[in-house]
C-alpha cells in the first residue's frame, strides 16, 4: 500500500513537467519493476528511491519537490541503462524536479550551495572550476562570453553571494 486513494490521483503535475521538458512524457511507460532502484548507487547509501519518486509524480503528489531525496541522485545514468522500457530519461526528470523545487523555494539547503560559491566564482572569472588550471584559464577578454551566457542563471546569484560576503568581511 502506498497510502494513496483514487481521489488523490491527478495528471496536473505530470502535465506540467511534460510541458516543461517534453521527454518527461515517457515516464508514463514505467512498469515499476524496480530495476533502477536495485542498481542505483544513491539508493545504496541514502533514501533515494526513483520508483517512489516516479509514483509520486504520476500520482500528482507535489510533496516530492520538498523531499531531500531528489538531491541525492548521482546522475550516473545507470537507471537508463537497466530500464526495460525505451526512452525513460530518469536523470532528466530529476533535474527537472530539482528545478521545480528551486522555483518553489524548497531547493537545497544554503550550506549545500555554499560549496559551489568558489567553483562558480572561478568559472565566471577564469572559465574553469579550479584555481591555477593546467594551462591558465580562459583569456580575460573572452570571459565576457561566459558571463553573458550565464546571465540570470543561479550560478550568477551564487557568484554574487560570494562577492557580497567578501565585501561584508572587508567592512568588518
Amino acid at each position, binding site marked *: 500500500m502506498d497510502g494513496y486513494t483514487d481521489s488523490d490521483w491527478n495528471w496536473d503535475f505530470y502535465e506540467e513537467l511534460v510541458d516543461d521538458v517534453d521527454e518527461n512524457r515517457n515516464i508514463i511507460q514505467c512498469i515499476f519493476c524496480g530495476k533502477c532502484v536495485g542498481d542505483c*548507487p544513491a539508493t545504496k547509501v541514502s533514501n533515494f528511491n526513483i520508483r517512489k519518486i516516479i509514483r509520486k509524480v504520476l500520482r500528482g503528489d507535489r510533496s516530492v519537490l520538498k523531499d531531500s531525496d531528489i538531491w541525492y541522485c548521482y546522475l550516473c545514468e545507470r537507471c537508463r541503462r537497466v530500464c526495460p522500457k525505451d526512452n525513460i530519461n530518469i536523470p532528466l526528470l530529476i533535474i527537472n524536479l530539482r*528545478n521545480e523545487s528551486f522555483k518553489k523555494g524548497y531547493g537545497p539547503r544554503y550550506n549545500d550551495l555554499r560549496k559551489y560559491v568558489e567553483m562558480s566564482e572561478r568559472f565566471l572569472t577564469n572559465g574553469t*572550476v*579550479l584555481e591555477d588550471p593546467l*594551462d591558465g584559464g*580562459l583569456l580575460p577578454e573572452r570571459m565576457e*562570453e561566459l558571463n553573458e*551566457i550565464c546571465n540570470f542563471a543561479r550560478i550568477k546569484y551564487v557568484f554574487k553571494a560570494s562577492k557580497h560576503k567578501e565585501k561584508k568581511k572587508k567592512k568588518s
Partner: protein
Amino acid sequence: MEAVNLALNLDEIERNYPGNPLEYFKDKKLCLFKACLEKYFPGVRWGIQDLLEGLDLEVSTCANQSCCSGTFFQRNLITRAQFAAINERNLNEMNRQADIVLFSCNGCYNSVLRGRDFLKFSEVKKKTQDLLNIFKEKEFGENYPGKYDILDNPKIRVTHDLDFLYLIRNDVLNSLKFDLKGLKVAAHYGCHYLNLERDKKTVESYLRDKTKLDEFISLFGGIPVDYQEKEECCGWGASQIVIHPNDALKGTYKKLKSAENVGADFLLMPCPTCLYTLSKPEFRNEISVLFGEKLDIPTIHLNELIAILRGCEEERCITLRRKTPRLDEIFEIITKE
C-alpha cells in the same frame, strides 16, 4: 535540422582501415579537451599528448575552451540552454582548429554529448541560439572572434581517449618499453563511460559489457582481476562527495576495499574525476576515520600508465605530490629493466 551526433564513428574507421586505423588520423588535426581535474594529474594530459606526438600525429589544445560546465548543470545552477550554449561555444572554438577532439574525462565527454543532445528539443535549441546571438549584437567589433552559431553540420568529431587508444592499440603497444610484469590490475570504467548511450550507434553496443580497459591490462602484460564493485560509482556522484560526503564515501570505500580484497595491485581508470575521488589523500583519511580501515591501493589513469610503460620520466607520468609508497613500488616493478 536535427543536431548532428558528433561521436566519431570508430566502427567505420576500423572497417575502412583494417589493420591500420592510425592511418585515418594521419592527416587529421587532433585536439585534447582540457578537463579541469587534469590540473591535479598533469600526466593524464601529458601522457596522451606525448604518445600522439610520438606517433607523428598533429595534436593541440584549444586556448579558448572553457570548462564543460557539467558540474553546474548537474546542480541546476545553469539551464539546459545555457549549458548547451557553453557547449556550442567550446565546439565552435575547437571546430576552428581541429577535426577530432579527444576526452580524458568521462564527465567532460558526457557533457559535450549531452549538450548536443539537448539541441534536439526545438525550444532549447532556439534559446541556445538566442544566447549565442548576444555576442553578435554586442559592439565587440567586426573582428571579434567570439561569434558563434549552433553547429548544424560541423566537421568536428569527438571521442573518448579509451575508445581512441583501443582503436589504435597495436600502435600503442609498439610504442611501449615496459610491460606490467604480471601485476594484478582492477579496472574501473566509471559511470559515464559504462552508461553512456549518446555515442553509441546500436542498442547492443550500449548494453554489452565494456571490456576495453580489461583488454588493455592483458595486452600490457598484466592480469585483469574481477571484483564485486567493478561497475559501481567511484563516489563522486555528480558532486555528491561535496554535498553529502559521508554517504558518498561509503561507495568509495566499498569500491577500494573490493579491489583490495581480490588482491589487485592497483586500480586503472579512464577518468581524472574518478581518479581524484579514489585517490585524494583527504578522502582516504576520511574513509579510515569513518570505516576504521586505512586503504592504500594505488590508482592510475590509463594515460598515465601508458606514459609509465613508454618509459617516460616518473614525475611526468605521476605528479610527485600524489606519490605513495605503494605507487612508487608499482613504478619500480614496471620500470625494472
